[in-house]
């Protein structure tokens, strides 16, 4: 098994710039390759070029060669054979699980079997492989469910299982774990990593740098269609110009860079173990400066309150069980396993669903007396998928839609919309058609469209999906600004490092009830509770605990200061 790419160039039809610009590399059997770069750097295009969708499906201008050698020692040039031939050797999992399902199969089992049926594999073998894939992704329990009834994270598991069952020699995964809970995404990484032991090549596009660093043998750094560097994780993440390519180092590397700690070979460590081995806590090592505890706990006014909240879609299948919760001015993250009931909870807060039992109060008032539309100006909710709301032909009109609905005048709505676009750094795109923008930008448009309505409470459902380092920075700055203005920001999220960066309070949700609730620092100290909820500690916290630190540091910055830089 081998991949050999020489001088690959590609331009999408109707585009003036090259999406891939003179890329050459070789990948050897059993390698786990990480692909990093900011949005628009050509990562997804490269994935599609390896399966032959570029150029066969997308057309456009193509140059260079992609040669694939499969396990039976056949070498094919992907531009010269149909995709249906290439895909017997190369499997592709892409980001949006919803569109990866065939849409013609009624059960998870049949969905996973579909590709195998097309290849005419014997029935016994199909049953064996499907079982194996279901087990590997831990979705055996859903085998008879309709794939479209599953949550995003579970759907993503089905999509991955469907490709793994085809036993490709080369697996290309384009952000396959964006919607999975932390443990789920760790399981996927570990599962594909095991496959490399048999000689299979894994190519993984990811924004989760700690995972890339942990599992990759080599990392590809792409920028504006060019291959900037292709080397070991240590070498790539030791570069001092990463920021200009829109990527960031793993948290461990960030800390070591701040402390100036390098490995004997002069490179920075990239994994928990390597950093842990380098940094020693206590005598002769790092000394912890006296902790500066924040003084008096300020009092916060109640904003949203749930009393004995119970909810189910179908009788006998409870989603929420007697939830009592008071949300205040603090930024609050709601975390938990896929399907724990997080989205259901915020939909109830927003009045989109009616509680089966219990009551919800907004600033002391029972919300059941208001319609959803009349609550809109007070509680803003940004849906996970921006495509569910975008319908105007210009970004500005789209963002003005909400403000106009809640009774703002044209002029005021425009001002608010422009302000909101400024916040999401899309002012230059005001007249663009949102459908011409990428998913990450469309998501920012959706956030702006709610911000422009100036709500007291902003609820974000998985805001960081599809966002690169820069996008996350933008969202962070918005959250800080709203906090300073006395607004409440609530988010549902699987990105633990993002939680530690900007959320004061964290609520752990599991199986429809609150498992832990408190200041983020305290909640993340509860390793056991997090494990039960299929979560994990933020990377810096993991390192601090491994070093035996008395304090829990949440960010590399904080840890560097705490360790007496």
């Amino acid at each position, binding site marked *: 098994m081998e991949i050999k790419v020489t001088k690959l160039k590609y331009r999408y039809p109707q585009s003036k710039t090259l999406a891939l610009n003179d890329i050459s590399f070789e990948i050897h059997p059993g390698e786990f390759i990480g692909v990093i770069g900011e949005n628009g750097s050509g990562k997804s295009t490269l994935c599609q070029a390896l*399966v032959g*969708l570029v150029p066969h*499906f997308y057309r456009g201008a193509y140059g260079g060669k992609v040669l694939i050698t499969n396990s039976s020692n056949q070498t094919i040039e992907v531009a010269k054979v149909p*995709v*249906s*031939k290439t*895909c*017997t050797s190369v*499997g*592709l999992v*892409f980001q*949006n699980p*919803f*569109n*990866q399902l*065939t*849409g*013609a*199969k*009624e059960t998870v089992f*049949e969905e996973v*079997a*579909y*590709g*195998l*049926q*097309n*290849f*005419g*594999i*014997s*029935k016994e073998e*199909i049953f064996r492989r499907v079982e194996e894939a279901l087990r590997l992704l831990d979705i055996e329990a859903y085998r008879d469910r*309709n794939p*479209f*009834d599953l949550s995003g994270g579970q759907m993503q598991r089905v999509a991955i299982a*469907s490709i793994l069952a*085809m036993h490709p020699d080369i697996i290309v995964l384009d952000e396959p774990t964006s919607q999975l809970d932390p443990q789920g995404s760790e399981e996927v990484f570990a599962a594909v990593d095991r496959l490399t032991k048999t000689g299979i090549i894994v190519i993984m596009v990811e924004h989760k740098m700690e995972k890339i660093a942990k599992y990759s043998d080599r990392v590809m750094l792409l920028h504006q269609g060019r291959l900037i560097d292709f080397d070991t994780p240590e070498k790539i993440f030791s570069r001092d110009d990463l920021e200009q390519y829109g990527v960031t180092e793993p948290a461990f590397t960030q800390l070591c860079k701040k402390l100036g700690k390098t490995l004997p070979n002069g490179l920075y460590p990239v994994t928990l173990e390597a950093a842990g081995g380098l940094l020693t806590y206590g005598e002769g090592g790092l000394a912890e400066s006296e902790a500066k505890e924040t003084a008096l706990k300020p009092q916060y006014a109640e904003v949203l309150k749930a009393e004995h909240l119970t909810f189910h879609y179908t009788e006998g299948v409870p989603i929420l069980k007697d939830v009592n919760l008071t949300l205040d001015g603090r930024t609050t993250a709601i975390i938990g396993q896929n399907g724990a009931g997080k989205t259901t909870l915020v939909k109830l807060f*927003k009045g*989109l669903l009616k509680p089966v039992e219990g009551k919800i109060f907004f600033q002391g008032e029972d919300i059941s007396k208001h319609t*959803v*539309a*009349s609550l*809109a*100006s007070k509680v803003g*909710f940004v*849906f996970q998928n921006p*495509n*569910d*709301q*975008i*319908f105007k032909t210009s970004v500005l009109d789209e963002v003005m*839609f*909400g403000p106009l*609905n*809640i009774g703002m005048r044209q002029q005021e709505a425009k001002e608010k919309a422009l302000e909101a676009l400024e916040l999401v750094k899309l002012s230059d795109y005001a007249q663009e058609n949102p*459908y011409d923008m990428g998913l990450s930008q469309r998501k920012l448009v959706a956030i702006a*469209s*709610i911000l422009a*309505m100036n709500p007291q409470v902003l609820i974000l459902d998985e805001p960081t999906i599809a966002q690169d380092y820069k996008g996350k920075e933008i969202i962070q700055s918005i959250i800080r600004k709203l906090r300073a203005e006395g607004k409440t920001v609530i988010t549902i999220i699987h990105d633990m490092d993002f939680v530690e960066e900007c959320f004061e309070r964290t609520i752990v949700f599991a199986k429809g009830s609150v498992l832990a609730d408190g200041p983020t620092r305290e909640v993340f100290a509860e390793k056991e509770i997090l494990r039960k909820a299929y979560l994990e500690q933020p990377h810096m916290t993991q390192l601090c605990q491994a070093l035996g630190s008395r304090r829990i540091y949440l960010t590399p910055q904080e840890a560097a200061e705490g360790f007496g830089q």
Partner: protein
Amino acid sequence: MKSISLYTQNGSFLTKLEPFDKLFYVLASVAAPSIAGQLPAYFLPIGISLVLLIHSRLFKKALPMTVVGLSLILTVWIVQGIFSQKNETPLFHLGPVTFYQEGCLIAARIGLNILNMFFSFACFVFSTRPSDLVEDMERVGFSPKLGYVVNSVFQMVPQMTGAVGTITDAQRSRGLETEGNLLTRAKAFLPLISPVVMSALINTRERAIALEVRGFDAGLQKTFLREKTKKASSFWIRLFCAALLAGAVVWRGLTWK
């Protein structure tokens, strides 16, 4: 997800039969009375279908449609019985209105035809999983593309209903009133329908890719997951259907004038 398929999995006699056998039965039971050309000939297939439906606990599901069918037949009977051009022989009077024999016979023929077709189709539709039928069709050589289209319709309609729900929620969250008078609803139409259409277009492209990488176009001999053994019941059902048709032809011959 609420399926739009009318199929009920209840493990009954009809659900266990092969889709094609049931299709043969539909064809035979619809064709036979027309070939025989005699009104009494309709009662046999109607009777068989009814027994099958009741025996397989599907009659309840067919009941609402039966009521619709009967009201349709009633209308036909009134119109034909009173106004048919062939009307000559008065049959009975209902107040000032006269019903004629010729019209009533025409109405009876149409009505029995409707009932017959309806009950035999019910036997088929309520007891057959659409994807099983598609698989059997592909087995005998229908194009897999056609099969995909049929199957995806059954998935896409409920899927789109779900999407409309989410989109409605998203727009209500932005202060759009979706309930109220006609004007309010008309105003809400565009913000609700555009994302549905646009998402569908975007999804179509991605789904085409998804099918492509799963070997949809591989052109190899496809494996079917359901075991296909020749069932004894198949032989007897098809024999019965043939007998029904043959009987109809004979009946027609005997009554030829």
